[in-house]
Structure formats: structure tokens, C-alpha cells
């Protein structure tokens, strides 16, 4: 599979109090199924496991996102950058601002997936740690 190179912006890391926002696709909870689907899509296109989010580094950007791009969604998950980092997640500034990818340097621990290498039904499983083009 030919992966596309993902643009990574060179910019200061988002401050710890930045809001990390993601429109939820399946209701009020960020479900495992939703995370799996979106990380697989990101992997299939860009070759690394990532979850698309928008990062608001100040109230103005947050207001703009909620009034525009995220306005039509019933549910939006909100995290702080600091909380995500303390959980071992990296915020990678990818694509067009304020888009970021949430990435981890190792795959989540799922013994069945790692042993069988078949994370997706009918497809090959993840075989390496997250990487960025």
C-alpha cells in the first residue's frame, strides 16, 4: 500500500491548557469502535496510527471552532493537552491548522491483536509502532 506523506507543521507545542476537541461520530462517548475505525483510516492513508482532533490554544479559536467546524455536531469531546500528554499521548501538529493527530509511540496493549496480527477483520494487523511519514 502506498502511503501519502503527512505534512507536519513546525510550531511550538500546544500549551497544557489548550483544548483538544473532537466531534464524536457515534454518540456521547468516544467509543473503541470509533477510535479503531479512524486510526485504521489514518494508517491506511498516512501509514501511522492517529486520531484527528482540533486544538484550540485560546478561547477565540475554541469559540470559532465550536461556532463553525464543530457547530453541527451534537457531541464534541473536550480534553486538555496536559491530560492527554500525561496519559502518554503525543499531539502531532499535522495537516492544516488547527488539525492535530493524537499518536502514541507504542500500540495499545491488546494481547489478542498483537499475538494474531489481525486487528481488523479480514485484514493485516498492525506490525509496527506508530510512525510518521
Amino acid at each position, binding site marked *: 500500500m502506498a502511503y501519502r506523506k503527512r505534512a507536519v507543521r513546525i510550531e511550538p507545542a500546544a500549551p497544557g491548557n489548550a483544548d483538544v476537541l*473532537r466531534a464524536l461520530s*457515534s454518540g456521547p462517548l468516544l467509543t473503541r469502535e470509533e477510535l479503531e*475505525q479512524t486510526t485504521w*483510516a489514518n494508517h491506511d492513508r498516512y501509514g501511522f496510527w492517529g486520531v*484527528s482532533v482540533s486544538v484550540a490554544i485560546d478561547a477565540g479559536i475554541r469559540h470559532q471552532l465550536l461556532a463553525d467546524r464543530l457547530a*453541527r455536531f451534537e457531541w464534541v469531546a473536550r480534553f486538555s493537552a496536559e491530560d492527554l500528554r500525561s496519559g502518554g499521548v503525543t499531539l502531532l501538529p499535522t*495537516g492544516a491548522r488547527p488539525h492535530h493527530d493524537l499518536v502514541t509511540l507504542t500500540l495499545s496493549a491488546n494481547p489478542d491483536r498483537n499475538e494474531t496480527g489481525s486487528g481488523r477483520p479480514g485484514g493485516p494487523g498492525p506490525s509496527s509502532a506508530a510512525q510518521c511519514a
Partner: protein
Amino acid sequence: MIHIDLPADLSFEDDAGQLLAKVPPSGPPAAGAVLVAGTPTAWTWAIVTDIDDGWVRFRQVSAREAARHGTLVAP
């Protein structure tokens, strides 16, 4: 329940900020097509910008704009 033409994560976008989804099993839509993208709980009217090697690039539009480009009634 609403019929989804193009299953998509409406947060997933390319480097230009355009929304992306894999070509659905039903086949690729035509460029310029008006469709419903997303999931049954988070969907949007959309217009297909182009098809790129198994991926659909599209933009989110209002119902008003969608109606200017095609019918909003399923055949």
C-alpha cells in the same frame, strides 16, 4: 434513520483541510455529487470534490447549498 451515502469520520482531513473518506463499497461517487456523509449520529450534507486513488475528498455544506447542486431526495 438517515441513509448515509458515504461513511466518514468528519474529523479526518487531508493536508489542505479537506475532508476525506474511503470509497464506499457501493462504489465511488462522481465528482460534484451531493451526498450525505458521516454516521447516523453525526452526518452532514457534502459535495464530492474529487476521487483520489480509493479516497473521496469532499466538503461539508449546508442543506441550502446542497440543494443548489442537486436533489436532496433519495431516488
